[in-house]
């Protein structure tokens, strides 16, 4: 694997923005020469389709295509923003560049920032935080994101501020044979509360999205975060979502992954302060020849921390899914609790799901449990519903929605639940008409 010449330092520099950001890009692009590209021989890429990714054929979305950093031409967030309902702020991001932002003026007066990383007023402060979470143990795609992120979405909540409604981030990624590098930074200040709903989508183009999401949850803050991935069928999505939790911080994060050709999410929580709590849940549904790939980490570095993970997926047609999860409890993290569950429904013969749970426990006074299942719909459940006069098609739909029900019930915002459930049903019904 290697990248084309279009991934040059000149292009990285040309993406503009404040000088600290340009310098940061140039530094990262300089290190690309010595980078080790992933292969599926590495554990973290095992079962993936990374070998099928022909990086050579993509070029980064250029400054010319993006236009000026402060050219916010997008009218609004489209249907997703409407469905998300009332919101306290919104960002629309096209190929990694913020093209629209809005914010409740009262909250802005209290210091809330909802803006582009490249155009924000508090630029210098941001410079110190950006990458503080994602660049720890950076992999090739994180470095690539550092080198070519044009700007990105910033949400910064000052200490003590409670944001009453969700903040919505809508990404649109397009451009045939182009690669885009969205970067989202959410900072929930001490004792603040905020909900963020982020959505990635693309048309039916051969596009590579290399996305990084950093979630910084300061002491005693509460962040509820949802990411919805609904890319077109030929989009490659390689995503890192990493959270850093301070003392007594609370994170409830959810991922709904429905789109993409190959779509990968690394979802990681570092519980770094005593009493921190992290919840990671996900719904994924793969059809046709999609591969949905998840790598999770619950990393306990402080005592009395608690993490809970519930990932549920279904695959049909010849789709594949991979779940590989790690619970790591470091030496100092005594009295911690970690739970990890991954369940998979394989709806048709050609489909398949891998599920690999892992534990690495270095403390002795902890509670941990993990479990995973992979299998078809339970025959007894089908029979039970059919015995009540429900057709096999309807029975399958009810069972699949029922299977996902506990995760849908835990999404950080209920406003999107119905339409996301509808998307799941659409996939089941679409198979039947093929």
């Amino acid at each position: 694997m290697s990248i084309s010449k279009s991934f040059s330092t000149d292009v990285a520099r040309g993406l503009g923005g404040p000088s600290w950001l340009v310098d940061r890009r140039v530094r990262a692009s300089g290190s690309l020469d010595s980078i080790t590209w992933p292969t599926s021989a590495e554990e973290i890429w095992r079962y993936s389709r990374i070998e099928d990714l022909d990086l050579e054929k993509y070029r980064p979305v250029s400054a010319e295509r993006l236009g000026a950093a402060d050219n916010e031409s997008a009218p609004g967030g489209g249907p997703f923003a409407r469905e998300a309902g009332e919101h306290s702020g919104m960002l629309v991001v096209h190929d990694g560049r913020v093209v629209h932002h809005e914010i409740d003026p009262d909250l802005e007066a209290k210091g809330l920032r909802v803006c582009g990383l490249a155009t924000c007023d508090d630029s210098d402060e941001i410079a110190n935080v950006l990458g503080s979470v994602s660049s720890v143990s950076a992999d090739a795609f994180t470095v690539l994101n550092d080198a070519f992120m044009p700007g990105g979405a910033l949400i910064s909540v000052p200490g003590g501020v409670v944001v009453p409604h969700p903040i919505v981030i809508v990404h649109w990624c397009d451009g045939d044979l182009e690669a885009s590098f969205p970067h989202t930074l959410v900072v929930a200040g001490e004792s603040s509360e905020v909900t963020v709903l982020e959505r990635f989508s693309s048309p039916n183009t051969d596009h590579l999205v290399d996305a990084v999401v950093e979630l910084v949850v300061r002491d005693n803050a509460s962040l509820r975060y949802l990411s919805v991935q609904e890319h077109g069928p030929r989009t490659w999505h390689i995503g890192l979502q990493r959270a850093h939790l301070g003392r007594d911080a609370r994170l409830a994060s959810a991922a709904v992954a429905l789109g993409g050709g190959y779509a990968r999410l690394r979802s990681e929580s570092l519980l770094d302060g005593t009493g921190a709590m992290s919840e990671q849940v996900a719904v994924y549904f793969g059809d046709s020849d999609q591969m949905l790939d998840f790598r999770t980490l619950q990393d306990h570095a402080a005592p009395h921390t608690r993490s809970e993970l519930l990932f549920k997926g279904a695959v049909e047609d010849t789709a594949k899914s991979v779940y590989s999860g790690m619970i790591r409890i470091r030496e100092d993290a005594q009295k911690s609790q970690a739970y990890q569950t991954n369940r998979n429904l394989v709806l048709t013969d050609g489909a398949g799901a891998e599920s690999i749970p892992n534990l690495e426990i270095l403390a002795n006074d902890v509670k941990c449990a993990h479990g995973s299942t992979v299998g078809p719909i339970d025959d007894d459940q089908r029979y039970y519903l059919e015995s009540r006069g429900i057709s096999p098609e309807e029975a399958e739909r009810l069972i699949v929605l029922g299977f996902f029900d506990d995760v849908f019930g835990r999404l950080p915002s209920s406003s999107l639940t119905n339409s996301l459930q509808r998307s799941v049903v659409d996939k089941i019904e679409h198979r039947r008409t093929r």
Partner: protein
Amino acid sequence: MSVLSVSGLHATVGDTEILRGLSVEVRSGEVHAIMGPNGSGKSTLSHTLMGRTDYTVTSGSVQVDGEELLGLPTFERATKGLFLAMQYPVEVPGVPMAALISASLRSRGVDTVDLDSRIATEADRLHVRDEFLLRGVNDEFSGGEKKRIETLQLALLRPKFAILDEIDSGLDVDALRDVSRRVEAMTKEQNLGVVAITHYARLLTELRPDHVHVMMAGRIVASGGPELADELEASGYEGVAARLGVAELAIEKQESSKVAFDRGKTESLADVLKAAGSKADDPFADPLA
């Protein structure tokens, strides 16, 4: 007036014949008890009537009002008027009973506008708490709650014939009374025909049968009135078998058949937790113990 007519029914699982020529005829409003020892094929009968695909019917017929049901898929048999209250109702997480009932009523073309109030009324009659209506159907319910919910569905779906497979197992006295009274009322108010399959006579003190059949090793070996249940109570299955000269009471369990029940699941968190704080119902527990 409807008739459920089962005649000369033979059914196999794998190489083992379990139903060996079974006939019974049930009319609307009648209560027939089928009593048999463990392993005599009672549940096999109930699933064969409902069309479960694990069982192969080799000959015989099952008709409702002259219309053949064998060959129809399970859901169509239900829409033709059969209802099976299962011995082990299946847990369906995330699918509350109301969703299930409204799907089955819709598939029958029945109006669901006043469904919520009908459910509330029935739940009251059967002393089912709201909690059990909101959770996924049977999901971690006790044995007794499961049977109440089976009866609740029966009452809402209003079939022509109900097959109750050991509806009394796992029930305490109060639940047994609630369930029996509700079923009995349906036989009077809606002319429901009932096949009450049971191992124990105690159900029949609550749900009084018009006809009693004794089932052994896949066939009915004696039919009569309630006095037959009294005889079973007094002399047991062995005693009745001796009087009738029947040697084989139950079908030998096939070693290979065990495999069919193993679903090869890997250990899950829920299972691990359940095992740890085991309040889970033992489906094989003696209901009289």
